[in-house]
């Protein structure tokens, strides 16, 4: 968790860290959109539950390592005030072959969306509102159950 922005190029370079066994890096960036549910968004505020957040992200990464043959995982999530175009979240996974890093990266995002204690409040022309959980996120996370 961090308030400040992140540099995806530098983060990926640090994750690979001169490991010549890495053949694949899958990554994902989530960004603030200027529209949601048909309303224009000016400002967004991201709240989290300090302590539990770190534990949940650690659990999600551990679960990914248990499921796939991957080298390293990185999860960065911003909190506080954000605006359209801002980066919110970054997930990157390294592996020898591409299938594993793709699957693990998408798995981490799906679980982060449904398990990690973050909440978005957005400012719309009709006033502030808390974003509702998406049913599609639950469905995305449910696919990973054996």
């Amino acid at each position, binding site marked *: 968790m961090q308030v400040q922005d992140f540099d995806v190029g530098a983060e990926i370079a640090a994750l690979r860290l001169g490991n010549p066994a890495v053949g694949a890096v899958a990554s994902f960036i989530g960004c603030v959109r200027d529209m949601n549910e048909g309303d224009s968004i000016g400002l967004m505020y991201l709240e989290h*539950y300090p302590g539990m957040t770190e534990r949940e992200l650690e659990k999600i990464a551990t679960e990914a390592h248990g499921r796939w043959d991957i080298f390293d995982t990185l999860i960065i*999530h911003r909190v506080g005030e954000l605006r359209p175009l801002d980066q919110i979240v970054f997930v990157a996974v390294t592996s020898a072959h591409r299938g594993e890093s793709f699957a693990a990266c998408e798995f981490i995002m799906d679980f982060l969306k449904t398990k990690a204690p*973050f*909440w978005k409040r957005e400012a719309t022309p009709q006033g502030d509102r808390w974003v509702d959980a998406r049913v599609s996120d639950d469905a995305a996370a449910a696919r990973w159950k054996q």
Partner: protein
Amino acid sequence: MTIQLIFLARLRERFRVSREAFALAPGAATVSTLLDQLRERGGAFAEELAPNRAFRVAVNQDVVTFDHPLKAGDEVAIFPPVTGG
């Protein structure tokens, strides 16, 4: 028996409190009995914690089911479904 209550996001705003020490009624306590006590406050508590509403409870930072037992000193957080990422 006292526990630490934490309310987050929309529930924090609705209840106008983010953290409080809470005295559980004597006897075997679970998340369910805690929720019953909170609903007795009426108002936003009765409304938001009604059985048909979607909210989650974490005890010591792990999400639990409502039959989870509580002990003195537990950190009990109540929050809406998460919406990060």
